């Protein structure tokens, strides 16, 4: 996976592991088919990353390790560099109740379909209305990925 994609709220499914560097991961049950979600990145430049594995528990891992994996993207936040104009389905809103209700007022709720008009700055169309989202909001609105990494 490209290191530039590593950011909180990104979710991906492991396709294959690097045999040498990931021997340890394999023995911990972090194997092809398992879904990982990036929870947060460390201070001092995001060299170390917290990931939720299989929706159950959290491990800290270096981002080189993730970059060496072959992954299928499952969900990406709208601020991800991979986001291009097009139609997406909202996977989740990774924020508190304040953000959720604000997004909900705009019509951005789970499973809603939105259209990205411009990726940066972010212009989207929801239910026919054009909306602009700030960077902080775009970090937390997560959409289903179109596949590939």
């Amino acid at each position, binding site marked *: 996976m490209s290191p530039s994609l590593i950011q909180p709220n990104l979710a991906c499914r492991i396709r*294959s592991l690097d045999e040498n*560097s990931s*021997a340890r991961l394999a023995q911990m*049950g972090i194997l*092809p088919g398992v879904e990982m979600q990036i929870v947060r990145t*460390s*201070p*001092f430049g995001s060299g170390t990353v917290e990931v939720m594995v299989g929706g159950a528990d959290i*491990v800290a891992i*270096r981002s080189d390790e993730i970059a060496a994996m072959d992954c299928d993207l499952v969900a990406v936040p709208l601020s991800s560099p991979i986001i291009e104009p097009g139609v997406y389905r909202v996977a989740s809103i990774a924020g508190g109740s304040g953000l959720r209700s604000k997004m909900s007022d705009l019509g951005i709720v789970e499973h809603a379909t939105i259209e990205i008009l411009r990726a940066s700055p972010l212009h989207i169309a929801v239910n026919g209305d054009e909306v602009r989202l700030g960077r902080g909001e775009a970090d937390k609105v997560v959409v289903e990925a179109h596949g590939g990494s």
Partner: protein
Amino acid sequence: MADHDVSVAIASIPNTGKTTIFNRLTGSRQSVGNWPGVSIQKAVGHFSLGEYDVELIDLPGAYSITPTSEEERIVLDFFLQEPPDVLLNVLDARNLYRGLGFTLQMSESGIPLVVAVNMMDEARRTGLDLDLDVLSEHLACPVVPIVGRTGEGVPNLKEALYDVIKSPRRRQPFVSQPPVVEAAVADLSRQIERSNTSKGLSEGFLALRALEADPVFEEHPAMADIRAAASAWRHKIEDTTGSGVPTVCAQCRFNSARGLVLEATHSKPPLPDALSEKLDRILLHRWLGLPLFAIIMLAVFEGVYGLGAPLQSWLADVFSSVGNGLSQATSGLPSLLQSFVVDGLWQGLATVASFFPIILLFFLFMSIIEDSGYMARAAFLMDRLMHRIGLDGKAFINLLLGYGCNVPAIMGTRVLSGRHNRIRAMLLIPFTLCSARLQVFVFLSAILFSRSVAPWVVLGMYALSFLVIIAVGLLLKALRVAGPAEPFIMEIPPYRVPTVRTVAMRSWFELKDFLYRAGTLIAVGVVFVWLLTHLPPGVEVASASSYAGILGRFFEPIFRPLGIAWQGTVALLFGFIAKEIMIGAFALIYPGDLTAQISSHVTALQGLSFMVFTLMYTPCVATLSAIRAEARSWKVTVGALILGLGIAWASALAVYQIGSLFL
């Protein structure tokens, strides 16, 4: 009827509360040693179970028998070389999936197994409802719910162990594997069966070990014969499946594990622990995380040394008043012998004892940090920074606490993962400016520098200490000392409240351990320095004609370029016992008005060079003993000594020579 001896090994993945259960079962009947040739602690305990006398061996935390870390290699060796009669596996109720991979591997071994599912209380609290009978049925072994922290379920666990010891069952669970793996295991099993050397382990288990890794075979007698066959199968499996045997087998085990978890889970809380999630939002916050970490570390530092220092000085008073009594009681003896008893032997004991309060407090706080789950968070926060100097995040705490005292910081390296991290941390910790060195710097800078300059000199020493640690860290990294780093993967466990019992027991065992392992060496070191400074008989203590003085003058050519006279060298020799003793040593070396003597004999620049040397040169005898005890290697111990001396000499030389150009 005589007691029957049974060996039970307790094994699990890290963070399942294995040690708590070990302590619950054995109480205080345990001894601590090391696994052969490595720096990893081996605890063995005893308890009786009906007519059986059980020896319980605490295996290091490992994710599998397939070795990817030093701990796992130990577990593998143990299985192959001295398979126990019964295995006790511990699972964390909140994360069965991760633990079951190892459980399945253990149950393949053919050794009768008992599984304890720990932390049932926390699982219940979060709403997790597990059906352990399903697990028991599939794993073909007893599965007992327990709460290690409170002892709930421990009697049931003992009962289950008793039953298995009495009537061992050797049924194995079924783990489906690709046909090529099955064929390989069947073929190799037949060959192993023919050679009849499986030592009670199942042939299939040995066959899998043979397939996974080559070098294993030299360590098991039967296996040399099937090496070639195993290697051929290995290549075939790699060609067929497209990945290595360890990964293929892990995939099979974890597929089974996933199915088992699905079956055994009646209802499941939605996400990882909600409380942990909330706490982490604050404690690991991008901007708040580090300041909070700094505050917590400050509190720990103050807790260990703020509470420890008064206790230490109280203990020192007790020892010195007993020492006074001792010197009166021995006044009939020849003065040299009397001095040997009081200043040599007794001083040695006092030095060992002086570490008790801080070691106790250090491990008290370390256990709290570790058991609460904050250690993993701290490691996460600092990992990026520490990675640059070739360590992982956890080592930061050791280095930081080294600024109080190196000895507990070195002992604390045992919580680090991987020999690589442990050895490198042990080599770096001696460059931290411990409180003993601080005393020397405050003392000397007050004499040699004006009141406005002196604090800056001390501060400069701190800065120098940071710089040296970074430089030496980079050097060790570039030289690949202690091998390349193991990949950093660390579980972030949910927060939990540590129990008084666990914390207290841990601190107590660590203290005992220090006494056994490092105590003697420290005392010997102190006596050795006494011999150097008091002999040959009749000399003035530490004078030019004592062995220490002779040594000091002998080495003068080496120290002259640093601006250190032979008197300084003798003081450094004393500093080997404990750096703060140097102040007392100056009093011996420069009799009379100490301040006037020092300021007339030593220039400011010479003093500075001396301080730089003191900061970095050989760790004190207690630190070296701790390194020896932790690393289990004279090579590392001598390495620490030479590294310190070499860097101290070069740095002091640079300070003195460059300084001389300007002054």
